[in-house]
Protein backbone atom coordinates (compact mmCIF):
# COMPACT_ATOMS: atom_id res chain seq x y z
CA UNK A 1 0.00 0.00 0.00
CA UNK A 2 2.73 2.40 1.04
CA UNK A 3 4.88 1.56 -2.00
CA UNK A 4 1.87 2.02 -4.27
CA UNK A 5 1.31 5.50 -2.90
CA UNK A 6 4.99 6.27 -3.37
CA UNK A 7 4.83 5.10 -7.00
CA UNK A 8 1.79 7.27 -7.62
CA UNK A 9 3.60 10.26 -6.11
CA UNK A 10 6.67 9.60 -8.22
CA UNK A 11 4.54 9.49 -11.36
CA UNK A 12 2.80 12.72 -10.47
CA UNK A 13 6.09 14.49 -9.90
CA UNK A 14 7.51 13.21 -13.19
CA UNK A 15 4.41 14.29 -15.07
CA UNK A 16 4.60 17.63 -13.32
CA UNK A 17 8.16 18.22 -14.42
CA UNK A 18 7.36 17.32 -18.03
CA UNK A 19 4.31 19.56 -18.20
CA UNK A 20 6.10 22.39 -16.40
CA UNK A 21 8.98 22.34 -18.83
CA UNK A 22 6.54 23.27 -21.55
CA UNK A 23 3.89 25.21 -19.70
CA UNK A 24 4.86 28.34 -21.58
CA UNK A 25 5.94 26.96 -24.95
CA UNK A 26 4.13 24.05 -26.55
CA UNK A 27 6.44 21.67 -28.40
CA UNK A 28 6.52 21.94 -32.18
CA UNK A 29 5.83 18.94 -34.46
CA UNK A 30 9.58 18.28 -35.06
CA UNK A 31 10.07 18.31 -31.26
CA UNK A 32 7.03 16.10 -30.65
CA UNK A 33 8.31 13.58 -33.20
CA UNK A 34 11.69 13.58 -31.44
CA UNK A 35 10.13 13.10 -27.98
CA UNK A 36 7.88 10.24 -29.14
CA UNK A 37 10.72 8.48 -30.96
CA UNK A 38 13.07 8.94 -27.99
CA UNK A 39 10.46 7.56 -25.59
CA UNK A 40 10.27 4.44 -27.77
CA UNK A 41 14.05 4.02 -27.94
CA UNK A 42 14.24 4.27 -24.14
CA UNK A 43 11.76 1.43 -23.69
CA UNK A 44 13.60 -0.68 -26.29
CA UNK A 45 16.89 -0.16 -24.40
CA UNK A 46 15.22 -1.15 -21.11
CA UNK A 47 13.77 -4.25 -22.79
CA UNK A 48 17.19 -5.26 -24.17
CA UNK A 49 18.66 -5.07 -20.68
CA UNK A 50 15.78 -7.15 -19.28
CA UNK A 51 16.18 -9.81 -21.98
CA UNK A 52 19.89 -10.04 -21.17
CA UNK A 53 19.47 -10.11 -17.39
CA UNK A 54 16.16 -11.73 -16.49
CA UNK A 55 15.61 -15.46 -16.07
CA UNK A 56 11.86 -15.11 -15.56
CA UNK A 57 10.02 -16.24 -18.70
CA UNK A 58 7.08 -13.84 -18.20
CA UNK A 59 9.44 -10.90 -17.76
CA UNK A 60 11.48 -11.85 -20.83
CA UNK A 61 8.30 -12.38 -22.89
CA UNK A 62 7.02 -8.97 -21.77
CA UNK A 63 10.35 -7.34 -22.69
CA UNK A 64 10.20 -8.94 -26.17
CA UNK A 65 6.65 -7.62 -26.58
CA UNK A 66 7.87 -4.12 -25.67
CA UNK A 67 10.75 -4.33 -28.16
CA UNK A 68 8.52 -5.52 -30.98
CA UNK A 69 5.77 -2.93 -30.44
CA UNK A 70 8.03 0.07 -29.86
CA UNK A 71 10.12 -0.86 -32.90
CA UNK A 72 6.93 -1.10 -34.99
CA UNK A 73 5.69 2.30 -33.79
CA UNK A 74 9.09 3.92 -34.32
CA UNK A 75 9.38 2.46 -37.82
CA UNK A 76 6.00 4.02 -38.57
CA UNK A 77 7.11 7.32 -37.02
CA UNK A 78 10.27 7.40 -39.15
CA UNK A 79 8.26 6.69 -42.30
CA UNK A 80 5.88 9.50 -41.40
CA UNK A 81 8.52 12.17 -40.70
CA UNK A 82 10.21 11.21 -43.96
CA UNK A 83 6.94 11.56 -45.84
CA UNK A 84 6.17 14.89 -44.17
CA UNK A 85 9.77 16.06 -44.69
CA UNK A 86 10.01 16.84 -40.99
CA UNK A 87 13.38 16.60 -39.25
CA UNK A 88 12.92 15.51 -35.60
CA UNK A 89 14.44 18.16 -33.35
CA UNK A 90 16.18 17.41 -30.06
CA UNK A 91 14.82 19.37 -27.11
CA UNK A 92 14.86 19.67 -23.31
CA UNK A 93 12.07 17.11 -22.79
CA UNK A 94 13.90 14.49 -24.91
CA UNK A 95 17.14 15.24 -23.08
CA UNK A 96 15.55 14.93 -19.65
CA UNK A 97 13.86 11.65 -20.66
CA UNK A 98 17.21 10.22 -21.81
CA UNK A 99 18.98 11.41 -18.67
CA UNK A 100 16.37 9.85 -16.36
CA UNK A 101 16.33 6.60 -18.37
CA UNK A 102 20.12 6.28 -18.34
CA UNK A 103 20.12 6.65 -14.55
CA UNK A 104 17.27 4.14 -14.22
CA UNK A 105 19.05 1.53 -16.38
CA UNK A 106 22.24 1.94 -14.34
CA UNK A 107 20.23 1.49 -11.15
CA UNK A 108 18.48 -1.64 -12.46
CA UNK A 109 21.77 -3.08 -13.70
CA UNK A 110 22.94 -3.43 -10.08
CA UNK A 111 20.06 -5.82 -9.34
CA UNK A 112 19.83 -9.51 -10.19
CA UNK A 113 17.17 -12.22 -10.13
CA UNK A 114 13.78 -11.32 -8.65
CA UNK A 115 15.04 -7.94 -7.46
CA UNK A 116 15.89 -7.02 -11.05
CA UNK A 117 12.57 -8.36 -12.38
CA UNK A 118 10.61 -6.27 -9.89
CA UNK A 119 12.66 -3.14 -10.54
CA UNK A 120 12.26 -3.49 -14.32
CA UNK A 121 8.54 -4.27 -14.34
CA UNK A 122 7.67 -1.66 -11.70
CA UNK A 123 9.52 0.95 -13.72
CA UNK A 124 7.74 -0.19 -16.90
CA UNK A 125 4.40 0.59 -15.20
CA UNK A 126 5.69 3.97 -14.01
CA UNK A 127 7.36 4.81 -17.31
CA UNK A 128 4.33 3.99 -19.46
CA UNK A 129 2.13 6.04 -17.10
CA UNK A 130 4.53 8.95 -17.49
CA UNK A 131 4.70 8.71 -21.29
CA UNK A 132 0.92 8.22 -21.59
CA UNK A 133 0.33 11.26 -19.38
CA UNK A 134 2.66 13.34 -21.55
CA UNK A 135 0.94 12.09 -24.73
CA UNK A 136 -2.53 12.89 -23.41
CA UNK A 137 -1.90 16.26 -21.83
CA UNK A 138 0.89 17.71 -23.94
CA UNK A 139 2.02 15.91 -27.10
CA UNK A 140 -1.32 15.02 -28.71
CA UNK A 141 -2.98 18.39 -27.95
CA UNK A 142 0.11 20.23 -29.28
CA UNK A 143 0.53 18.24 -32.51
CA UNK A 144 -0.39 20.32 -35.57
CA UNK A 145 -0.13 17.74 -38.35
CA UNK A 146 -3.20 15.46 -38.51
CA UNK A 147 -1.20 12.34 -39.44
CA UNK A 148 1.27 12.90 -36.61
CA UNK A 149 -1.61 13.43 -34.18
CA UNK A 150 -3.27 10.22 -35.40
CA UNK A 151 -0.06 8.20 -34.97
CA UNK A 152 0.35 9.59 -31.45
CA UNK A 153 -3.26 8.66 -30.63
CA UNK A 154 -2.70 5.09 -31.83
CA UNK A 155 0.58 5.06 -29.89
CA UNK A 156 -1.26 6.15 -26.75
CA UNK A 157 -3.71 3.23 -27.03
CA UNK A 158 -0.83 0.79 -27.60
CA UNK A 159 1.12 2.15 -24.61
CA UNK A 160 -2.00 2.09 -22.40
CA UNK A 161 -2.12 -1.60 -23.30
CA UNK A 162 1.55 -1.92 -22.27
CA UNK A 163 0.79 -0.21 -18.96
CA UNK A 164 -1.92 -2.80 -18.18
CA UNK A 165 0.28 -5.63 -19.45
CA UNK A 166 3.10 -4.45 -17.15
CA UNK A 167 0.65 -4.30 -14.23
CA UNK A 168 -0.37 -7.91 -14.91
CA UNK A 169 3.28 -9.03 -15.02
CA UNK A 170 4.00 -7.07 -11.81
CA UNK A 171 1.06 -8.75 -10.04
CA UNK A 172 2.46 -12.14 -11.09
CA UNK A 173 5.83 -11.38 -9.48
CA UNK A 174 4.45 -11.04 -5.95
Amino acid at each position, binding site marked *: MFSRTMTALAVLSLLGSISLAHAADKPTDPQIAHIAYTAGIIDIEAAKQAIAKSKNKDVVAFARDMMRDHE*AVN*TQALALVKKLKVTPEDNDTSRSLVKAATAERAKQDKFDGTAFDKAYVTNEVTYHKQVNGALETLLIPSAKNAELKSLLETGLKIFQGHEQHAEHVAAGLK
Partner: protein
Amino acid sequence: MASQLKAWISIVLILGMGSIPARAETIRVTIEKMVFTPAVITAKVGDRIEWINKDIVDHTTTVKGGWDVVISSGKAATLQLEQAGPVDFYCRFHPNMKGRVTVTR
Protein backbone atom coordinates in the same frame (compact mmCIF):
# COMPACT_ATOMS: atom_id res chain seq x y z
CA MET B 1 -4.76 -13.90 -51.89
CA ALA B 2 -1.84 -16.28 -51.55
CA SER B 3 -0.94 -14.91 -48.13
CA GLN B 4 -4.54 -15.18 -46.97
CA LEU B 5 -4.64 -18.79 -48.10
CA LYS B 6 -1.35 -19.45 -46.35
CA ALA B 7 -2.60 -17.89 -43.10
CA TRP B 8 -5.78 -19.96 -43.27
CA ILE B 9 -3.93 -23.19 -43.89
CA SER B 10 -1.49 -22.51 -41.07
CA ILE B 11 -4.30 -21.88 -38.58
CA VAL B 12 -6.09 -25.06 -39.63
CA LEU B 13 -2.85 -26.92 -39.04
CA ILE B 14 -2.27 -25.22 -35.68
CA LEU B 15 -5.73 -25.97 -34.38
CA GLY B 16 -5.83 -29.45 -35.90
CA MET B 17 -9.57 -29.12 -36.19
CA GLY B 18 -11.86 -32.08 -36.68
CA SER B 19 -14.92 -32.26 -38.87
CA ILE B 20 -16.42 -28.92 -39.89
CA PRO B 21 -20.24 -28.80 -39.71
CA ALA B 22 -21.91 -28.15 -43.05
CA ARG B 23 -23.71 -24.98 -41.88
CA ALA B 24 -20.72 -23.42 -40.18
CA GLU B 25 -20.46 -19.70 -40.68
CA THR B 26 -17.42 -17.47 -40.57
CA ILE B 27 -17.69 -14.34 -38.48
CA ARG B 28 -15.24 -11.61 -39.29
CA VAL B 29 -13.68 -9.55 -36.51
CA THR B 30 -11.48 -6.66 -37.57
CA ILE B 31 -8.84 -5.22 -35.28
CA GLU B 32 -8.08 -1.60 -36.05
CA LYS B 33 -6.66 1.14 -33.84
CA MET B 34 -6.54 -1.25 -30.90
CA VAL B 35 -10.23 -2.19 -31.01
CA PHE B 36 -11.98 -5.49 -31.85
CA THR B 37 -14.94 -4.77 -34.15
CA PRO B 38 -17.49 -6.12 -33.46
CA ALA B 39 -16.48 -6.61 -29.85
CA VAL B 40 -19.64 -8.52 -28.89
CA ILE B 41 -20.44 -11.58 -30.99
CA THR B 42 -22.96 -14.39 -30.96
CA ALA B 43 -22.15 -17.64 -32.75
CA LYS B 44 -22.88 -21.35 -32.88
CA VAL B 45 -20.60 -24.25 -32.07
CA GLY B 46 -18.73 -25.08 -35.27
CA ASP B 47 -18.69 -21.49 -36.53
CA ARG B 48 -15.38 -19.88 -37.24
CA ILE B 49 -14.08 -16.45 -36.33
CA GLU B 50 -11.71 -14.81 -38.76
CA TRP B 51 -9.58 -12.19 -37.03
CA ILE B 52 -8.13 -9.51 -39.30
CA ASN B 53 -5.37 -7.34 -37.85
CA LYS B 54 -5.10 -3.96 -39.62
CA ASP B 55 -2.80 -2.46 -36.97
CA ILE B 56 0.95 -1.85 -37.13
CA VAL B 57 1.50 -4.08 -34.08
CA ASP B 58 0.80 -7.79 -33.48
CA HIS B 59 -2.19 -8.75 -31.36
CA THR B 60 -3.58 -11.92 -29.86
CA THR B 61 -7.05 -13.27 -29.25
CA THR B 62 -6.81 -14.96 -25.90
CA VAL B 63 -9.27 -16.62 -23.55
CA LYS B 64 -8.15 -17.44 -20.01
CA GLY B 65 -7.93 -21.23 -19.86
CA GLY B 66 -8.93 -21.37 -23.52
CA TRP B 67 -7.59 -20.35 -26.89
CA ASP B 68 -4.56 -18.17 -27.52
CA VAL B 69 -3.81 -17.19 -31.11
CA VAL B 70 -1.36 -14.52 -32.31
CA ILE B 71 -2.63 -12.33 -35.14
CA SER B 72 0.39 -10.69 -36.71
CA SER B 73 0.30 -7.11 -37.97
CA GLY B 74 -1.44 -7.00 -41.37
CA LYS B 75 -2.41 -10.69 -41.20
CA ALA B 76 -5.48 -12.77 -40.46
CA ALA B 77 -6.10 -15.86 -38.35
CA THR B 78 -9.11 -18.15 -38.15
CA LEU B 79 -10.27 -20.33 -35.31
CA GLN B 80 -13.24 -22.62 -34.87
CA LEU B 81 -15.58 -22.42 -31.89
CA GLU B 82 -15.72 -25.83 -30.28
CA GLN B 83 -17.64 -25.28 -27.04
CA ALA B 84 -20.91 -23.63 -26.09
CA GLY B 85 -20.95 -20.83 -23.54
CA PRO B 86 -19.98 -17.21 -23.16
CA VAL B 87 -16.26 -16.43 -23.30
CA ASP B 88 -14.43 -13.18 -22.74
CA PHE B 89 -11.49 -12.69 -25.02
CA TYR B 90 -8.71 -10.11 -24.83
CA CYS B 91 -5.33 -9.30 -26.33
CA ARG B 92 -2.49 -10.73 -24.27
CA PHE B 93 -0.11 -8.01 -25.51
CA HIS B 94 -2.60 -5.17 -24.84
CA PRO B 95 -5.07 -6.25 -22.16
CA ASN B 96 -7.07 -3.04 -22.69
CA MET B 97 -8.44 -4.72 -25.87
CA LYS B 98 -11.44 -6.85 -24.96
CA GLY B 99 -14.47 -8.59 -26.42
CA ARG B 100 -16.99 -11.32 -25.75
CA VAL B 101 -18.41 -14.16 -27.80
CA THR B 102 -21.52 -16.08 -26.79
CA VAL B 103 -21.51 -19.54 -28.35
CA THR B 104 -24.74 -21.55 -28.53
CA ARG B 105 -25.46 -25.09 -29.74
